[in-house]
């Protein structure tokens, strides 16, 4: 489908925020009271709040008629999008409360730790619900797989973790070696997950056969006239022009590079500038991962709209615009 800025930003920033709060909550338990008494938790919580707020703001740009937004919780029983709003909003409120207790109005360490944990859990819930929006659409052949949720949540958690690590290095001037090592391992696991997901995407492309378009699977046809808008299908953004192998590799290259660079920076960094560079490469990785997730997805209706359907036939003879 056509990748859109608001969706990439919304899902990307929500994931980063979830990762930041996950690390914050984990450190609250592992590092204990000395960590909670330092300035670092407030710093992390503030950045996390900005990230989740940015994601929420981006989501409003995906709504093309905001006047109807007041009805958005009507279908909680069936719509994952309604549920996303119902879970991301409490995540944002909890993030704001975390900033309040760690920066503005300090409370007992136990309460602070409990709030960070609750925020992290709400973040995980919001990320899961967001991923389920994509994983439960049968027509989106690339997304309706068990890989969508772990890959999407994993990307957010790892990239958000890298952000948390970079912020800690900046705030404490320490190398945070333990966290860095854990994140390198998490990156490796994520790389495996993405590799499997790319394989799933490839299989989804093969599932689209032109014979299905006429109700005769197994018999080969070629699309002569899609009867629709010329690319990029202005009125039907659920289908985008199929990426060529070269374009796919061109988009995967920076993603792999961002992952490798982030891992290298995690292993060598002991200074703020390098840590911040790691945060930048992690964010770039999230951007490319999410762009590919949308741009390379195969929708079932592409059999009627594109000439990219898997077929041994020559490409469509629809004249170019």
């Amino acid at each position, binding site marked *: *489908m056509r990748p859109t800025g608001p969706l990439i930003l919304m899902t990307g920033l929500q994931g980063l925020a979830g990762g930041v709060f996950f690390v914050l909550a984990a450190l609250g338990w592992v590092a204990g009271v000395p960590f909670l008494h330092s300035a670092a938790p407030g710093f992390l919580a503030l950045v996390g709040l900005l990230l989740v707020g940015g994601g929420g703001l981006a989501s409003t740009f*995906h*709504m*093309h*008629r*905001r006047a*109807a*937004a007041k*009805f*958005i*919780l*009507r*279908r909680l029983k*069936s*719509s*994952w*999008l*309604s549920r996303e*709003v119902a879970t991301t909003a409490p995540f944002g409120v909890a993030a704001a409360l975390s900033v309040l207790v760690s920066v503005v109005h300090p409370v007992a360490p136990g309460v602070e730790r409990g709030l960070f944990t609750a925020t992290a859990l709400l973040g995980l819930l919001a990320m899961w619900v967001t991923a389920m*929006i994509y994983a439960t*659409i*049968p*027509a*989106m052949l690339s997304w309706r797989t068990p890989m969508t949720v772990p890959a999407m949540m994993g990307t957010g958690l790892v990239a958000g973790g890298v952000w948390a690590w970079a912020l800690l290095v900046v705030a404490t001037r320490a190398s945070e070696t333990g966290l860095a090592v854990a994140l390198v391992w998490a990156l490796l696991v994520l790389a495996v997950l993405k590799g499997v997901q790319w394989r799933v995407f490839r299989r989804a492309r093969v599932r689209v056969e*032109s014979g*299905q*378009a*006429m*109700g*005769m699977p197994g*018999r*080969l*046809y*070629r*699309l*002569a*006239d*899609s*009867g*629709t*808008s*010329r690319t990029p299908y*202005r*009125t*039907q*953004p*659920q*289908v985008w022009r199929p990426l060529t192998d070269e374009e796919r590799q061109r988009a995967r290259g920076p993603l792999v590079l961002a992952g490798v660079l982030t891992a290298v920076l995690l292993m060598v960094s002991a200074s703020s500038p390098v840590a911040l560079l790691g945060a930048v490469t992690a964010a770039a990785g999230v951007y490319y991962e999410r762009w590919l997730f949308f741009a390379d997805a195969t*929708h*079932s*209706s*592409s059999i*009627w*709209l594109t000439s990219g359907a898997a077929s041994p036939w020559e490409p469509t003879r629809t004249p170019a615009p």
Partner: protein
Amino acid sequence: MQLTIITDLNKCVGCKSCQVSCKEHNTGGSFGPVPDQDPYADPDGMWWNRIVGMEGGEYPDADVLYLPKACMHCYDAPCVPVCPTGASFKREDNGVVLVDYESCIGCQLCMWACPYGVREFDEHHGVVKKCTLCIDRIEDETLAPEDRQPACVQSCPTHARTYGDLDDPDSKVARLVAEQRGFQLLPELGANPAVHYLPRRPVASAVDDDKLDTLLTGSY
């Protein structure tokens, strides 16, 4: 009751009169105006009913197929439950799937959910639109009974399209589906579309005398 349209693929000649009459009716009508902001400068606009043309085979056994494709008004319409505001809904009394433009936020999730790619985004109004089965015509009691049918059905010159209640076993559409093995598109995706198509009957290919010997020899 489940209103639907059955298309006989043997009779469809791809003239696109259904496509054009749909556009004409819904652009000029008052219920669901199809946007056509600058039709002379940019013909790349919204159509609720599109004719897909496919080619199959190789010469001399080649054939061409035309498939009119609009909203399938599915029994289990996947576009309905995903809508967060309830703007997409299925009428309980006649099974027609509609969009309430007033409560649509234009998130386009229903377009992703539709397996058939028949929903279109109106970027000027910021909402998703689709075939209404000409609900304004079929429920207009001021029209003569023969006019209370979708514009695409009424305009088909070969009578390839038939409109009626699929749930009524005595209706013409139900009989056509039962007797001529009407099929649904992409049944494996579970939407259970109400719109059916009548399959192409095999056509004997013409083989001239010169080629007959070659073909017969090749068979043995």
